């Protein structure tokens, strides 16, 4: 999280975000209104205008970013997505097995969908009239995922076989009778087996995205290690456990005290229950408020880790997001949005964008390190090929 010192000979260009909440509110509310009145069709145009507003208000070294996507293509992608989703929802309702099959197919296709969507966004993002590009290396991604997925499945099966054979499973069956199905354990064991791999999968995903992104003809490189991701996830988990344990302890004491004070000889009465319930609400509020700070840590640490390890040609980035500040913005934004019945959503988005930009810098190797970037000749052809898959699912 600490700022990396500027290297000798490097020029530092801070990112700037120039949008304002009041200006974006007017754009946002018109977008929302037209999207409703056109039964969602305008939402594709709304998305383009929103992205254009946020891109073009973001600048580094005095040059703005630009979002150049064609709303018609986004609309096409959305129609496909809505059709798939509707089919999926109804197949769940009518034929659970069909829904399950579709879910399986969807999960298997998820990496490919991510690539298609990312490639779309990158291709229509430009800086200094040079576009970004994303290498659609679908095969490479599945190959990278193969071993971790195999390990997760193996671990799941092993854990399941082990649990099944223990006395504990037999005991559960005795106690719960027909209500206990051993098969139900499978999904829980799967989630447990997935947990230790989450930071690694996040690392794989981040590395894949960075290393397949090109600005003009220069490709980005990624210097972060998987261990750093594990560190962030461990700290987050630790903070979460700490928070839960502390609040549970306090709550237990408070509940015991309330019940002891209010219950007479007749046992627990209504007053005691009411007392406990009235304590529950502030506790839930405290829990969720502190959760925002854990989320803030996660977001800040992850973004800093990833951005500080991206190198493109002779240029690199620095990101100095501060956990407490991000947590505070999350919390206060949420409260503001709820109290304003959603009217402050634009203000909240602008506020976050401004903070993130203020914490990000581009370190240019030398004056010409950006100037020398040239358009990629190869990517132009790749884009033609990709037109058929030009879908944006709004990921």
């Amino acid at each position, binding site marked *: 999280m600490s700022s990396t010192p500027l290297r000798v000979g490097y020029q530092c260009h801070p990112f700037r975000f*120039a*949008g304002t909440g009041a*200006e*974006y*509110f*007017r*754009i946002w*509310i*018109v*977008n*929302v*209104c037209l*999207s*409703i*009145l056109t*039964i*969602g069709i305008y*939402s594709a145009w*709304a*998305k383009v*205008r*929103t992205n*254009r*507003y946020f891109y*073009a*208000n973001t600048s580094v070294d005095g*040059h*703005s970013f*630009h979002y150049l996507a064609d709303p018609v293509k986004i609309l096409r992608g959305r129609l496909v997505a*809505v059709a798939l989703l509707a089919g999926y929802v109804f197949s*769940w*309702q*009518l*034929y659970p097995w069909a829904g399950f099959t579709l879910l399986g197919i969807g999960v298997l296709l998820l990496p490919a969908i991510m690539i298609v969507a990312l490639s779309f966004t990158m291709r229509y993002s430009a*800086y*200094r*009239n*040079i576009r970004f590009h994303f290498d659609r290396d679908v095969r490479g991604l599945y190959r990278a995922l193969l071993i971790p997925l195999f390990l997760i499945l193996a671990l799941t099966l092993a854990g399941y076989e082990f649990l099944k054979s223990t006395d504990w499973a037999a005991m559960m069956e005795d106690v719960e009778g027909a*209500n206990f199905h051993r098969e139900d354990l499978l999904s829980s064991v799967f989630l447990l087996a997935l947990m230790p791999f989450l930071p690694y999968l996040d690392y794989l995903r981040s590395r894949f995205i960075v290393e397949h992104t090109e600005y003009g003809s220069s490709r980005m490189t990624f210097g972060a290690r998987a261990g750093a991701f594990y560190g962030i996830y461990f700290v987050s988990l630790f903070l979460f456990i700490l928070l839960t344990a502390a609040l549970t302890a306090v709550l237990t004491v408070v509940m015991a005290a309330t019940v002891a004070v209010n219950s007479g000889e007749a*046992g*627990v*009465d*209504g007053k005691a*229950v009411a007392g406990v319930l009235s304590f529950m609400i502030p506790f839930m509020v405290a829990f969720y408020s502190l959760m925002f700070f854990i989320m803030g840590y996660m977001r800040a640490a992850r973004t800093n880790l990833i951005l500080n390890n991206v190198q493109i040609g002779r240029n690199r980035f620095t990101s100095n997001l501060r956990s407490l500040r991000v947590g505070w913005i*999350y919390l206060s*934004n*949420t409260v503001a*949005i*709820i109290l304003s*019945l*959603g009217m402050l*959503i634009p203000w*909240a*988005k602008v506020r976050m964008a401004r903070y993130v930009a203020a914490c990000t810098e581009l370190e240019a190797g030398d004056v010409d390190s*950006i*100037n020398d*970037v*040239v*358009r990629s000749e190869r990517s132009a052809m790749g884009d033609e090929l990709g037109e058929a898959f030009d879908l944006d699912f*709004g990921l």
Partner: protein
Amino acid sequence: MRALRGRYYDGRSARFEDVRLTLDEHGTLACEPPLFEPMPLSGVRISSRIGNTPRRLELPDGSVVEAQDHLVLDDWVGRHRPGLDRAHHFESRASYALAALLCVTAVLVSGALWGVPWISEIVADAVPSGVAGRLGQGTLEYMDRIAFAPSTLEESHRQELSRRLEALLPADSDFDYRIEFRDGGFIGANAFALPDGAIVVTDQLVQLAQDDDEISAVLLHEVGHIEHRHALRIVISHAGLAALTTAIAGDVTAAGTLVLALPNVLMESSYSRQLEWEADSYALERMPELGLNGGKFADFLDRLESTHAAAAGEDLDCGGSGDVTAADLDMNPGPEDGEDVADAALPQSADDETTLFDEEELESDWLSYLSTHPPSAERIARFRNGTK
């Protein structure tokens, strides 16, 4: 004629050059220094204005001039590209923002209260009954696991009640009607309609009834739920509202979704009242032809109401926890819906029902939107008057 200051990017490299563009009275664009030949502005693609962000003038050869001098740009666009900045026109004035805000609020509230339920009724009626009935499969099994126990009712009584149901059924119905008898457990006295025609009746409800005519009236109410395909309508409404809110939310963040759950709550609470009302109407309409007495059903509702209220008062320990669970099922239908129509059958979640009634009797029409069922007093009066 004022010049436009901007930056020229050739599109082949990331280099740029500061330029001044001028436009003569014939609409010809010239560049200083002359990085491109003078050309008609009509051959240049200009990006529409958004906020105060820089705009792009895209030349045919792929090079671009970026400029932010909106005074000059607006003037050029106004004269040579009328209509290009229509969106910006709406997006830049407070009056349009206010109009849009009012419009969004009106659409959301009326959509949640009337629009989505109305459309879902049309769609639900178009779905074949075989498909509609498949909806609640697994619901009963699920309820058996979490709440019910096998019924302890006498076999002869069960057969008698099943015969009564047969007598109630509409002649041309496609649903496979039957009664499922269960011990209600913490749910207590209640009846549920499942979408395929199964009506769950708890032992406690049968015991609460003074005679079988009262149970017939309850069954008739449940038949109303099934005949009107309420389960399907709720599923469709949820999908419809989700589509509506997604269209609005677009790319809104997590905090936004919280706010967008509001119309959902609004719809659900008023909607389940409306469905109760409809099932009551169905029962009221058919009671005379079947020789049933609405007043007796009113008495029964009355008794059910007071039993639950009494239970809530006396026995907070177990009654309280049970009611919370029941209310949960009531308010938040899971993916395997059905159970919430089913469950909405009669006011059973006494704890939170009675509190809502109390507030309601004090004042406020608004609060009535937050109660899940029509106030029982109102329902009871309806059946009394219907017979008088």
